[in-house]
């Protein structure tokens, strides 16, 4: 990579040619303030807070957009620069309501922190009088226009990262307002509540209903982990305080999703209001009653050693759990299954990143607006870039409006033929396709890269652990052991005489179980999961489980011990 020599604030820096002054400064550890800029978004250059003085330039220039050139000399905190920045801050504070003490972002707000940095102690311009609307029509997060500084990070995130194009600006000048679609309430718009806008907003304008007022950055802990909402396995950061999950954010550095998340990964876990199972339970006279681990495990061990046995496991479980589960029930001769399925891949297996290069994307049977939504964003981004989407799916498919071609399974052959002509075709397949559809893809083997979207977050991990996949309804045995953890599995009893549920929450499974063993939820255990591309990723515990809840693997090992199995 070619370097150019520049000087910033007297410091000699070898900057990468083509980078901006801001990037070069940050690389060298110098802190030029920004507001509209975000590293994951296109350079915008509009808030004007990053103005710097560059020798031999007539006017101050925005560091976030100005490219470095050989010999450039930059001053980032000269008198002129500081005056210009203060002015921008004064204007922003005069524009809308920034009474920080009432704002949920106070302490973490980028605008507020700049006001401290540049010593804003007064409002030199008249205070705003007119309160603006607060749009709380979305389920999970709120738009408070009173705190918005119109930096448009949200607009760019929605367009460039999510490719959903919901957000925009209406009116102009001082009347400019962030808006959804053709000015409808956010909750009635095309918004998919992925929350990417929320994650990039520098102020309190976009606020998360769950995390608002629940802890500043200095009061929370962050844990890097992997989402087990689906088999994409997005990188996440779990933000927690006092053993409570406050918020989930997309991990900008994660290779799979590069910061993106969907509503399933970002919000749904925080709104899980099911009742926890906090201790072992045994059914007596039809009612579940608390008991000690010792008693519960004794009872279970006894049942496991006798009768015909079926054992089912959630595909939200980690690879470590899968392995332990396999060992135990294999040696007991149980009929085993993990509840999930793989998608067909009749050719070379691709990666999600292939979508960024594809010229034709053939999506077969998947609705990427409902499931695997982050893959949906990647497909839309590809379409924005000029790739064409060929959809083999039901008429109401969520990506229908992005598709160049859209047919049912009966006419799939024409699109397969077309994809075969493309130069970089990528096939995205859902799991559980009709057999004919699978067969119809054969001509693309060797031509396309295949991205199968397995059902169940860790179906690939299950297969690697030697567990067969199933829909979960087929097992029929005298004794049924269901390792559900926090999954919402629907498994019929099928005439089993004894049912064990290892579960985190009270629900249909515990209702039918004879013994319930409390299980941690995904955020309480560490381990690994294998995503739909075959990537092994790490899951980190961010929370400590309730006192009497044992790690899943420990329970399995203890059971093995009781049964005198050397595993």
């Amino acid at each position, binding site marked *: 990579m070619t370097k150019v020599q520049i000087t910033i604030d007297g410091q000699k820096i070898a900057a990468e040619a083509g980078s901006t002054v801001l990037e070069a400064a940050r690389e060298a550890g110098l802190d030029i303030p920004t507001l509209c800029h975000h590293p994951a978004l296109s*350079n915008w*250059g*509009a*808030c*004007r*807070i990053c*103005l710097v003085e560059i020798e031999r330039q*007539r*006017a*101050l220039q925005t560091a976030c*957009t100005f490219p470095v050139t050989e010999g450039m000399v930059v001053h980032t905190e000269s008198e002129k620069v500081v*005056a*210009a920045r203060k*002015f*921008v801050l*004064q*204007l*922003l504070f*005069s*524009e809308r309501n920034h009474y920080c003490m009432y704002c949920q972002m106070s302490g973490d707000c980028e605008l507020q922190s700049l006001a401290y940095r540049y010593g804003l102690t007064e409002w*030199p*311009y*008249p205070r705003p009088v007119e309160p603006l609307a607060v749009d709380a029509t979305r389920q999970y997060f709120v738009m408070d226009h009173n705190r918005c*500084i*119109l930096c448009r990070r949200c607009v760019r995130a929605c367009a460039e990262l999510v490719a959903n194009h919901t957000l*925009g*600006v209406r*009116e*102009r*000048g*001082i*009347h*400019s307002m962030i808006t959804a679609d053709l000015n409808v309430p956010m909750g009635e718009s095309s918004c998919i509540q992925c929350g990417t806008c929320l994650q990039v907003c520098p102020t309190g304008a976009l606020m998360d209903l769950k995390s608002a007022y629940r802890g500043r950055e200095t009061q929370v802990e962050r844990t890097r982990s992997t989402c087990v909402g689906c088999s994409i396995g997005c990188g996440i950061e779990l933000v927690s305080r006092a053993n409570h999950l406050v918020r989930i954010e997309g991990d900008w550095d994660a290779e799979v999703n590069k910061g993106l998340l969907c509503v399933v990964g970002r919000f749904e876990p925080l709104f899980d209001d099911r009742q926890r199972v906090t201790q072992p339970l045994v059914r007596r006279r039809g009612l579940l009653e608390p008991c000690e681990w010792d008693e519960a495990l004794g009872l279970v061990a006894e049942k496991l050693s006798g009768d015909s046995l079926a054992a089912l496991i959630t595909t939200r479980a980690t690879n470590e759990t899968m392995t332990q589960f396999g060992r135990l029930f294999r040696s007991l001769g149980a009929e085993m299954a993990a509840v999930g399925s793989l998608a067909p891949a009749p050719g070379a297996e691709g990666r999600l990143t292939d979508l960024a290069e594809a010229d034709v994307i053939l999506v077969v049977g998947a609705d990427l607006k409902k499931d695997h939504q982050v893959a949906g964003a990647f497909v839309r981004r590809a379409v924005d870039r000029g790739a064409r989407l060929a959809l083999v799916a039901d008429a109401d498919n969520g990506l229908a409006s992005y598709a160049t071609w859209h047919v049912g399974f009966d006419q799939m052959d024409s699109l397969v033929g077309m994809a075969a002509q493309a130069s970089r075709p990528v096939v995205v397949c859902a799991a559980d396709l009709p057999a004919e559809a699978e067969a119809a893809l054969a001509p693309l083997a060797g031509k396309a890269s295949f991205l199968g979207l397995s059902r169940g977050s860790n179906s690939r991990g299950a297969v690697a652990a030697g567990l067969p996949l199933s829909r979960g309804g087929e097992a029929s045995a005298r004794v049924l052991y269901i390792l559900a953890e926090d999954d919402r599995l629907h498994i019929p009893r099928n005439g089993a005489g004894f049912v064990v549920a290892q579960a985190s929450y009270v629900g249909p499974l515990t209702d039918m179980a004879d013994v319930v063993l409390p299980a941690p939820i995904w955020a309480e255990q560490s381990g690994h999961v294998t995503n739909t591309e075959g990537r092994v990723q790490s899951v980190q515990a961010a929370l400590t489980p309730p006192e009497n809840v044992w790690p899943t693997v420990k329970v399995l090992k203890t059971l093995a011990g009781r049964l005198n199995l050397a595993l």
Partner: protein
Amino acid sequence: MTFEKILLRNVEIPNSEKIDVYLKRGGYQALRKALHEHTPDELVEMVKASGLRGRGGAGFPAGLKWSFMPKAADVTKYVCVNTDEGEPGTFKDRLLVERDPHSIIEGVAIAAYAVGAHRAFVYIRGEFFTGVKRWMKAIDDAYARGFLGANILGSGFDLDLSVHRGAGAYICGEETAMLESLEGKRGEPRLKPPYPAQVGLYARPTLVHNVETLACVPHIVLRGPEWFASIGTEDSTGPKIFCVSGDVNRPGNYELPLGTPLREIIYEHAGGIKEGRQLKAVIPGGASTPMLTAEHLDVPMAFETLHAIGTMLGTGGITVMDERVCIVSAALRLTRFFAHESCGKCTPCRVGTQRLVDTLQRIEDGRGQQGDIERLLSLCDGIAGHTFCPMGDAAVNPTLSSIKHFRHEYEVHIERHRCPMSS
């Protein structure tokens, strides 16, 4: 001494917008000459040699801009005709479009041939209802007679031209905002560089010109760059349409050589101030340009001479204010325009112009406070040079220049808590 009309030579002839009238007046001969007798490079050189500078406000040398367009033949290139004419006090492009549209089409075709573009777009201000119709009719007729379309005049050169109507925003006259709007997006300026000549419409190299600039081109081709350069001053060559409005006896468009003194334009051509009153202030080049006073009346109306006294030729829109005008209310009125038209993209313009309006309004209403003049000046200081596009620099000019020349009048407003001009 009367100046031979060049750009406005047709406008007073009945039916001047019709192609037959245009042809009878010698129209499209320049295009024929350009296509058959000149190479594209020669034309670029001719426009360079003519000294023609843009008439849309910035005065950038046209030939230089043409030469910035990439030469490669396999690159799609575009030409865009800026017919947005939103600058207050400016009404020349409208006249040309309504009364002599073929002269512009001829200029577009020559420019497109010179830079190797085969597709051109007219971006026209939405409120120009007659202009839109005239543009479309003229384009249809030019196609029918073979001046547009495939193989123009048997030269092998193809050009398509169509009209796009704006939706009523001043900022869409700024070339990159115009390109955004043409692409169907919200009209807001783009980051520069890259300039449109490198990355323009649909990310292709694009030549953007004002109507009046393009209307000069056929004459340069027909009568030669030396002839063109002989008109006007050394750095400001050729004819210019001055739009005179305000408190004069004969407001209107006057075509004169660049360098004509301001006094001559106001007092001879526009018939002087109404009822013999005194001139108080004059805006020389559209609302964006700093105002002058009676002491500047001898300035030659040329790019360099106006620059030297701290203002600009701009569009050549001259607005005359006589002694009855309250300068604070004039500044308020002008600044309100800019605040209203701010696109809202960058902070200093979006919020700063509104704070200017707030303060000017308060002074005009008799609620001014000590320190308000300094507040205005510091607002101007904070906005100018710090905005995303040149609009911020323009927006402070009414305030800055009026304080510079009439500070006393502001002080009187503040001290007496009322406007001294309103009885």
